[in-house]
């Protein structure tokens, strides 16, 4: 047995163990990427570095055997900094997009590429479900969204962006199921007041209703819809489209109380005591929420915390243009969902009924929480020779214009054809990619050590089930070893040396030739999205 100290705790482990194993036996998890049980584990990625105090050195714990008297730190500042450096170096040489740029640029972070793929496959129902995960009003936004996603589309410089906005509308138009989403939870006994029925209020109510909350929506006007009804001309957004979507929310149980102006007193005396939580979505107002509703300002004089959408009164949240005037309805819709999540968390944590003390942890979601993992790796614009790589998964055809004009939208067939133009530039392993996971955890900056030039990406598609993208590889070589273990005849190999080393297929054979037996194991052991299943749809919600 070997005696050593790990993170100041004495441990006794078997001789021949690595530091990584010894730490695991003491319940300490050290991050790894290139490590894989059953392989030789020749260290490469250096994410598992730990500090050996006696010899004042950093060692890769996955390969360093324990020795008597070792004193190891697995999570000191120095160790974390070194791991961050390693991650930043790897990111500087990692070409690929964790998320498609369309999704990143969508204020609601809608999973556009997946919607496209489902539409292309003719599965409009599931496509609509994907849209509704983030967007409560797919039909309305299918008319009025300015589509920042299309400006970011990787396809744009080639010919034209994928017609995302119309595709979104098509999911709602051509779905075969009900216009009410499936899977609505039973009432949980909680009642929420939503003040305002514009895009933010409707969106908040939608997600609350879906989660089993009762919602009462107040609005000073005669009809619901806010600026969507009163500021947008009919030829842009036909009223029946808006009505249909409001009707859907009503059918989900939303109780609309129109022509109801909420005064300060009414708010304080009726609404506040009467509901488990309140969402303010009144839209832009001349006066501040303190004056209107009697909310207390914080130290800096503001009434709403823009990060978590909470206010000075526990259980009261705000969203939409009341916070800041925004141009895009899609931003308000995204805000509405965030406020709904804030309410849900608040109630789950406090039991509702407007707790007396405001506790930060019980407040809402951080606005950046859902979005912060967007841009761990971003490719930027494609170089012309790279178009071909992405077009392998797409079609070369021009953007489809609806035969009946834009107002008519896509027919089912048009939508399916247009959706096929999507390049699938989003990563197939957005969740299981360890590089992304740790880069996120360690706060690694992708541009920190950026080189003057990025590598040209490539995508090998010849294999039936597997895609290989060289430039997402961190050169750990696990796949080479696993292919060898499976007795692959051709297998994979390291080619070159130093910075230019890469994993290739011997004699310029194809990936199909290389991985006849080991493909699945190689994909599963690959720490990044370099090797992935073609049809993988890991969801990063």
């Amino acid at each position: 047995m070997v005696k050593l100290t790990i993170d100041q705790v004495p441990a006794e482990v078997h001789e021949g163990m690595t530091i990584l194993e010894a730490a695991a036996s003491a319940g300490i998890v050290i991050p790894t990427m290139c490590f894989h049980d059953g392989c030789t584990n020749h260290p490469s990625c250096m994410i598992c570095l730990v500090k050996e105090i006696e010899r004042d050195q950093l060692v890769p714990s996955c390969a360093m055997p324990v020795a008597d008297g070792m004193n190891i730190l697995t999570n000191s500042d120095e160790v974390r900094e070194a791991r961050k450096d390693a991650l930043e170096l790897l990111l500087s040489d990692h070409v690929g997009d964790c998320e498609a740029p369309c999704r990143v640029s969508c204020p609601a972070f809608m999973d556009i590429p997946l919607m496209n793929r489902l539409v292309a496959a003719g599965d409009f129902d599931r496509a609509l479900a994907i849209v509704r995960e983030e967007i409560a009003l797919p039909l309305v936004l299918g008319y009025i969204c300015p589509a920042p996603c299309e400006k970011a589309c990787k396809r744009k410089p080639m010919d034209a962006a994928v017609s995302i906005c119309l595709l979104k509308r098509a999911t709602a138009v051509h779905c075969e199921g009900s216009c009410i989403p499936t899977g609505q939870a039973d009432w949980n006994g909680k009642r929420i007041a939503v003040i305002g029925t514009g895009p933010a209020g409707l969106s908040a109510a939608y997600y609350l209703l879906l989660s089993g909350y009762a919602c009462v929506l107040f609005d000073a006007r005669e009809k619901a819809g806010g600026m969507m009804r009163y500021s947008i001309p009919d030829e842009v957004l036909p009223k029946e489209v808006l009505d249909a979507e409001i009707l859907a929310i009503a059918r989900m149980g939303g109780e609309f109380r129109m022509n109801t102006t909420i005064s300060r007193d009414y708010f304080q005396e009726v609404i506040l005591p009467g509901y488990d939580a309140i969402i303010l979505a009144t839209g832009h107002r001349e006066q501040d929420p303190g004056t209107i509703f009697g909310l207390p300002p914080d130290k800096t004089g503001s009434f709403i915390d823009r990060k978590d959408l909470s206010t000075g009164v526990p259980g009261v949240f705000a969203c939409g243009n009341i916070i800041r005037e925004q141009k895009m309805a899609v931003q308000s819709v995204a805000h509405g969902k965030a406020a709904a999540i804030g309410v849900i968390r608040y109630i789950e944590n406090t039991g509702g009924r407007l707790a007396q003390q405001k506790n930060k942890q019980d407040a809402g979601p951080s606005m950046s929480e859902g979005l912060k993992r967007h841009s761990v790796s971003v490719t930027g614009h494609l170089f012309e020779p790279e178009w071909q790589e992405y077009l392998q998964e797409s079609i070369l055809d021009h953007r489809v214009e609806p035969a009946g004009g834009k107002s008519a939208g896509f027919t089912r067939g048009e939508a399916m054809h247009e959706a096929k133009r999507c390049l699938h530039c989003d990563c197939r392993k957005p969740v299981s990619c360890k590089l992304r996971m740790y880069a996120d955890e360690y706060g690694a900056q992708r541009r920190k050590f950026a080189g003057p030039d990025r590598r040209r990406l490539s995508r090998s598609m010849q294999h039936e089930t597997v895609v290989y993208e060289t430039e997402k590889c961190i050169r750990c070589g696990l796949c080479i070893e696993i292919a060898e273990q499976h007795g692959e005849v051709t297998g994979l190999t390291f080619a070159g040396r130093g910075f230019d080393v890469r994993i290739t297929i011997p004699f310029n054979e194809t990936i199909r030739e290389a991985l006849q037996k080991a493909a699945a194991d190689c994909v599963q052991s690959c720490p990044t999205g370099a090797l992935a299943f073609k049809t993988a749809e890991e969801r990063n919600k």
Partner: protein
Amino acid sequence: MEFSDQQSAGKVDLVVSRHGKSADAVIPILQELQETFNYLPVAALKRVCETTEITPSAISGISTFYTQFRHQPAGKHRIRVCTGTACHVKGALFVYEAFRRELKLKESEDTDAEMRFTIEKVACLGCCTLAPVVRVDEVTYGHVEPGNVGGLLRDFLSRNKHDTVVNNPASTRSGFQGEVRIGLGSCCVASGSSEVKAELEKTLAASGILVDVQQVGCVGICNQVPIMEILKPGEQPAYYAKIRPEEVREVLLSHFRPEGWVNRFRSRFYNIFDQMVANGAPKSFRKYMAEQRDTPLSDFLGPQVNIATENRGVTNPVDFEGYRRTGGFESLRRCLERMTPQQVVDEITGSGLRGRGGAGFPTGRKWQMVRDQQATEKTVICNGDEGDPGAFMDRMLLESYPFRIIEGMLIAGYAAGASQGIFYIRAEYPLAMLRIGEALDICRANGIAGTSVLGSDFTFNIRIFGGAGAFVCGEETALIASVEGKRGLPRMRPPYPVEKGLWDKPTLINNTETLSLVPWIIRHGAPAFSAIGTAGSKGTKVFALAGKVRRGGLIEVPMGITIRQIVEEIGGGIAGNKTFKAVQIGGPSGGCLPASAAGMAIDFEALKEAGTMMGSGGLIVLDESDCMVDIAHYFLSFTQNQSCGRCTFCRIGTRRMLGLLDKIRSGRGVREDLDILEKLAHSTARGSICGLGKTAPNPVLTTLHYFREEYEAHLQGHCPSGKCLPLIRYEVGEGCIGCTKCAQRCPSGAIDFKPYEVHSIDPEKCIKCDICRQICPEDAISVK
């Protein structure tokens, strides 16, 4: 792709049959395939996989790892442009670019359209004193000017090619009047010593003078070569430095009388005739007598202590009897007959000898560790994978003293309880491989290597393994991987090779120079060795002294000598009225020390303290015209290129540091870049697993430490030494006499000229090739 002809497949099969079918035969097989086909055709590689245990994955991985291997056909002749440190500081890149222009090569090409020449950069040809140096096939050209590379190639093509390294078996004739020694190390040959030797033999044959011509190994005095030494009974030895072939006869006749009256008469006649013709022509050579003081020769040799290079310039490298006469194999005999292995280890431990490969691990302790291993099969490896730019000590030792190193290895084997030895020598050192091979044959024939060494019951078999060109294979675990037929990747230590080395058996790896010191230590005893040097570093160290000193060469000096002594006393100070600025010591793993640190006594600890290291012993002297950012960039681009690519920090970190240096060199750097550079340097040193990655940042860190103001100047868009091309421009000054020489040579037509008027350079067209500045007879072209 399949072979279209049976013949090619047959060739492959023949190669395979010579090296066996096991997986570890892959490197020798690839080396021979390349010799056969001039490159590695895919069909040949496939054939190997079909007929051996070597897998496609292995053969692809290995053949793309080592620089020796080519996957595209090469031209008929190879142009190797030395980019070693000495050549770099003397403008090797200008030369390289000039060849590329001459051959009209496009960016990614290395071979001209007619497939006549393939050009490549090599780390060091080991002729640092002739810098810049270019080798075309076997012919070496020194002091190459970028303006005349076309002439060089024409000269090469018109040459009646003959083997420039000729082996002359020791003569057995009697009745000699004396002995003439001529150095035939690689660098001597490059400076023309084989022509001198040819002339010498011609003269001897014609005159009938009977002298013993001894070709000796490296003479070390590279700055004075070709050098001819004449020994005559009753006379002081005389040295003729920088002698030219046409001067040989005159020198010879001034020492020796031709045999027979006819010859004597004829010689006298020709002599008179020659003097009539050549009267007034200045003689290029200098004559120095052995005991004469204050000559460049005595200054150069005086402070040196020859242990590894004992009998320098005296012995013929493969003269077995000669080696024996000077005490050779006495130490081995003493060990075998009068010492137990443990006593041998103790003797080495007591001598204080430390590994000369760079890190300075105590040799005795290493031997003890291997000796203590309970294993039946142990191996000794002589690490001759010297790959530093600007260092060629190992090659010189292997070429010049093969028996001494073999003896050292045998003693190590006996002490450690090993039964086999391997010489790991870079394939780029053909002469070293040849000499060791010859010496091994002689040893085997004389019962010195093989079963029952010197009649004892000690059995030790030695073979040679040709490295295939990867600097990282100097690292011991990478070296082992390469001998096992793998990509040369260093692995984690522990376990150390002394415990688990070649094929997981205990393995003793010693540097060439370390082994070469062993026989002397046994012969003279540990105290004699430890009497030399400093408290922590005993004995001597061989350095390749080059750069901006007057006298460069291979020197062996006692530890503890100061940098100033080396530069000023041995090297004769800085050449050309420039000021001493810095020394780069230890090659790519070492660092730059400023002139102000020249008082430092050289030993392992002192160098480490100063941020550099002994390394393998390159010592390049720099003057004010050398830019320290450029030097850091130079070394980092070397290590970056030689990284095995395994660890993140070394693979990407060195490249990113190089990118930052590029940015700074081109004047685009910002202050923050210096911080990131420094941070990356530290994390790369901390986070890499092998010596290459751990020390690669040293050149950057030392220059940042000692010469930070130069980096700062570059941030301001100014290169104080006028070296960084993007920051400089060429201008014609007042001194221009309008001779048009520069304009005629300018490859880009950038010089506007009218005869007898001051020319001017168009900065838009100027490609900064430096040709005009070098060609200008009036030194009127300056760099701003």
